[in-house]
């Protein structure tokens, strides 16, 4: 029973982390139709910058804020310079460019910071809480993760639902042409969308770093799990990302706990394929109408 609870709780924690990445993927994908495969690498890069700052003695929270801010700027810059020229052509090109970016960022990070695995410090204790006499697999840091991600999702939802800017962004994402006819500067909003998404990604990177061995490749698997989570949620809504993340997290946790940690990616793959076979548009995605 204890093992089951531990697996469950770690599934929730993982799920939250996947949801954060899924959220960044969803933000970009819904607005521009591009899946940003470089999201993980971008988050890794900003987290490494934070690491450098920490090593130099700057406090945790300032470094945290700086990393997220750099992520914001980075996202905007990438959209403006790399993605904008590819607008309107084949939808395959931006995807290829993001993959190239993934590799370039990992290569550059590896060249700068080297290959050795490090330990990224966590803001809170990573020891499981003690309930009664048993130690549960849920630590203060896990609380922080859950809280941060929920707050992030809530903030995004609030932005979209209650602000004029959010309304414009949604219009630009749903019907870019109609939005243009209403005077919405769609291009600028795409840039903003990317900036927000990468800021969210940076946040995710900072949350993940203490959980695993911190090397330039640490975000690869998490990106993929985030992708699975996003696809499960239908690539449409922040709430979908959250639900998709939880589902993926639990599935992986159970597979890893009861079979072995090496089958986790395959479990994710199986989950993804099963869902896509049954509903090619994802669990929460809209109806897949085929048009001629």
């Amino acid at each position: 029973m204890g093992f089951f609870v531990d697996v469950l709780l770690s599934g929730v924690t993982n799920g939250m982390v996947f949801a954060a990445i899924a959220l960044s993927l969803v933000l970009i994908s819904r607005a521009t139709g591009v899946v940003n495969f470089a999201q993980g690498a971008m988050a890794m890069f900003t987290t490494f910058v934070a690491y450098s700052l920490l090593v130099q003695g700057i406090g945790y929270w300032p470094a945290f804020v700086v990393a997220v801010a750099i992520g914001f700027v980075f996202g905007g810059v990438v959209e403006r310079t790399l993605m904008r020229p590819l607008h309107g052509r084949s939808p395959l090109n931006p995807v290829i460019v993001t993959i190239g970016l993934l590799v370039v960022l990992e290569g550059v990070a590896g060249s700068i910071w080297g290959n050795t695995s490090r330990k990224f410090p966590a803001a809170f204790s990573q020891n499981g809480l003690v309930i009664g006499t048993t130690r549960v697999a849920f630590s203060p840091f896990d609380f922080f993760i859950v809280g941060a991600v929920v707050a992030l999702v809530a903030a995004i939802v609030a932005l979209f639902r209650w602000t004029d800017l959010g309304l414009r962004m949604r219009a630009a994402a749903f019907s870019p042409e109609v939005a243009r006819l209403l005077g919405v500067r769609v291009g600028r909003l795409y840039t903003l969308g990317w900036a927000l998404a990468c800021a969210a990604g940076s946040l995710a990177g900072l949350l993940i770093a203490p959980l695993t061995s911190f090397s330039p490749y640490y975000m690869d698997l998490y990106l993929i799990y985030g992708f699975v989570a996003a696809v499960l949620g239908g690539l449409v809504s922040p709430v979908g990302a959250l639900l998709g993340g939880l589902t993926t997290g639990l599935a992986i946790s159970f597979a890893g706990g009861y079979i072995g940690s090496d089958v986790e990616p395959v479990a994710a793959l199986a989950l993804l394929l099963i869902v896509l076979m049954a509903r090619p548009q994802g669990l929460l995605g809209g109806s897949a109408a085929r048009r001629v």
Partner: protein
Amino acid sequence: MTTRVTPPPVGNLAPAPSAVRRLARSAERVRLPRQPLVRNLIFFVLGGAFFYVITVSVSAYNDFQIGEIALYAVVLAGLSLLTGLNGQFSLGQGAFMIVGAYTLALLQLHAPMNLALELVIATVVAAAAGVVVGVPAARLSPPYLAGVTLLLALGLPQLADQYGSVFGGEQGLTTTMPVAPGSISSEQWLAWIQIFCAMVVILLLANLVRSRFGRNFRAVRDDAVAASISGIHVARTKVLAFAISAGCAGLGGALLALSTGVVNVGEFPLSLSIALLAAMVLGGAGSLIGIWWGAVALVYVPTWSTSLSKHLSLGTSAAAYLSDAIFGAVLIVAMLVAPTGIQGGIRWVLRHLWAAVTGAPDVAAAAAAGGGATPGAPAEIAPVAIAPARQKGRRARAPAVHPHIWHNAGQKGEERT
């Protein structure tokens, strides 16, 4: 081989100097044999002779590298067919290479047989894996397919770690070098085997490209709806392309296993799959000649980056990172600037030369539009204006779509009372 477009007879345009024109006209008349098989066999023999000459005249280490180039050409041929010709985007070739490599190693370990047979079995097993992945993959749009194959490239190798008893765990399995007959050095013999495999694969694929299957691949890539109206079974076509590319990757993986002598997960990281993609794009997606450029890059970029990193006095591990970064940069730059790759650039130059010589500029323009085989080939008109209306919503940006296409296309279907 490339499907070269023979220009139609010259019309009534500005004449080039007459002597040159006469020469060009006679060159037009000298046609290669119409039968594609004969034509391809000629290239096969010529290519084989070329490689033979090279391998006997260089050192053993260079032979080894040439063999590596050949085996990467095998993998790239399949990938070029899949992505360039059929428009399916796979980041998972590394996974199929592993399947082929482990199959070979397991056969050599448990049931050693004729090397040729082992290679065939490795190819077939990898192709079967390709069918298994290809069936669900055929229904996916490009970004989803990219994600699924990325997951495959990351996840499948880990299975080998999970079932370490079968697959040799982290050490992996070893392979045995084939024994060379007579006094030929073993590196040369291995290189010949690899080159032979490459030539055979390219021959077969060149024939396929010229056949109705090759045409169907391209039709499905450009417009799947029009393809199914014309009687093409879209899903089957896509699965076939996937299986063929997986088989090629498996064969390449098996040959790589022979080269390195060892098969383990570390030999096939994610960056390999991405480097394969970059090499294909660099060479020119869809071109069976262009893959050689890509294969050369795959073998020599790591070497160059090692010396480059020494030159820049970065750490020893930086070389690998630098090599990866270069491939990534190639991808980005190619997509932004030259999506048709090296071979596309060469073709462009040749076409304009031909046009200048024979005075038929409209041919050059017509041939340039559409490009032929790359995912990102710049087209004058957004590829087949039907396409935006068929996908939901998102593509509505392109302003040059003829409004006719929107009529009755179901876009407004929900809005009628």
